[in-house]
């Protein structure tokens, strides 16, 4: 089931990103639904599922929205998914506040790793400004926390008899 819902979530992220890129291109460049999927997987199911979901999400993102080199987002999201899952097994990350911090950190780490990998492989990747990075982190964190909350409430309501 986990895998199915993860695949479903990645497909939803793909659709959402595609829709955003057509309707609101500036928003599509800031919002990262794939990152939200892997963070949620990491928080909910641990490091293994987090990194696998991250890898899959990253490859899909690279395939549809990436440059000529595939795998950069895949690698960054594998690492981010693993780190989030690892953090979830060691810390209490069920409240909105810590999750927001995790999301902010995930966005920063994702962008940072992308820059590092770009430099390592001599690939030109867009370097967002500090304000752009902050905006990206903020938007993704806020939307992520909201989406996570909604999703969990729905799941909890489904589990209740």
């Amino acid at each position, binding site marked *: 089931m986990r895998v199915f819902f993860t695949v479903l979530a990645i497909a939803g992220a793909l659709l959402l990103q595609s829709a955003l890129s057509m309707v609101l291109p500036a928003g599509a460049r800031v919002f990262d639904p794939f990152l939200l999927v892997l963070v949620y997987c990491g928080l909910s199911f*641990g*490091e*293994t599922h987090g*990194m*696998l979901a991250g*890898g899959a999400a990253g490859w899909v993102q690279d395939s549809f929205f990436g440059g*000529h*080199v*595939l*795998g*950069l987002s*895949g*690698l960054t999201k*594998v*690492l981010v998914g*693993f780190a989030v*899952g690892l953090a979830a*097994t060691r810390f209490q990350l069920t409240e909105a506040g810590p999750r927001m911090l995790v999301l902010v950190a995930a966005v920063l780490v994702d962008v940072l790793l992308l820059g590092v*990998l770009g430099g390592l*492989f*001599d*690939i030109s990747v867009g370097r967002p400004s500090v304000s752009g990075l902050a905006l990206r982190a903020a938007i993704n964190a806020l939307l992520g926390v909201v989406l996570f909350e909604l999703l969990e409430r729905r799941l909890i309501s489904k589990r209740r008899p």
Partner: protein
Amino acid sequence: MNRVETRRSRLLLAGLVLAHLVAISNQVDGGNGASLFQRWALSVFAPLQSGLSGALHGIGSVWTSYADLRGVRRDNRRLDERVRELELQLQEKSQEAAEAHRLREVMAVRDVLPVRTLVAHVLSRDGTPWYRTVTLDSGSEEGVRLDAPVLSSTGVVGRVIARGPHASRVQLLLDQQSGAGARIERSRISGVVSGQPRTSATAGGDLVMKYVPMLSDVVVGDVVVTSGLDRIFPPGLLLGRVRFVKTGAGLFKEILVTPSARFDTLEEVLVVTSLPPDETVVEQLK
């Protein structure tokens, strides 16, 4: 999460990271038409491949050398045997050639002699120190008669003193008991030639010409031939050359003659089977 799962997840992470790095590197152009991954792989694995190739080449060389060495050893044995065979053949051919040469010489002499002869081979030489004899492979069945003169291509050898059906014994001129009527060719002085007594002082390789008067004209270098007066040897056959002449206190000269026949290398000889009734002079053997 237990420790096993943690380890598994970290291994998985490492594997994923590595796979991603390879995938990314494979897409990045590393220059010279090769991807970055290919360049990394080449730079990392080329020395290993080189080392492996060198090791394999070395092993191959050692194996090839070993195989070659075995082959060389086998060839060496084969060639060694072949060389021995060829050496034997060569030796046989050389002997045959030498024999043919000797026989040609003997036959050349035989052709010019006015007497009938047969060719005989020397089977053995003198076995005792007191007598100088050789044994021939021809006897009475082949026409050899007692006292028959025996000649070589270079001069008189001796006479038959015993004979069997297919072998005969020849007394050499070197034997001190032998004797042949001789003549100094230049001055026509006659005498008797025989072997020297075999003492420690004399080597026994020379002949002695006896009964030559003191006043006779004999000088070193004179040719000595058979005189025919002994009724054994035909006249005019070469006996040797005067090597030493001494005028002593007696009636006769002391004359040493170097024999013309090479007694130490005798192998084929001519045995005279019949003498012409009124033989006078035979062409001198050179």
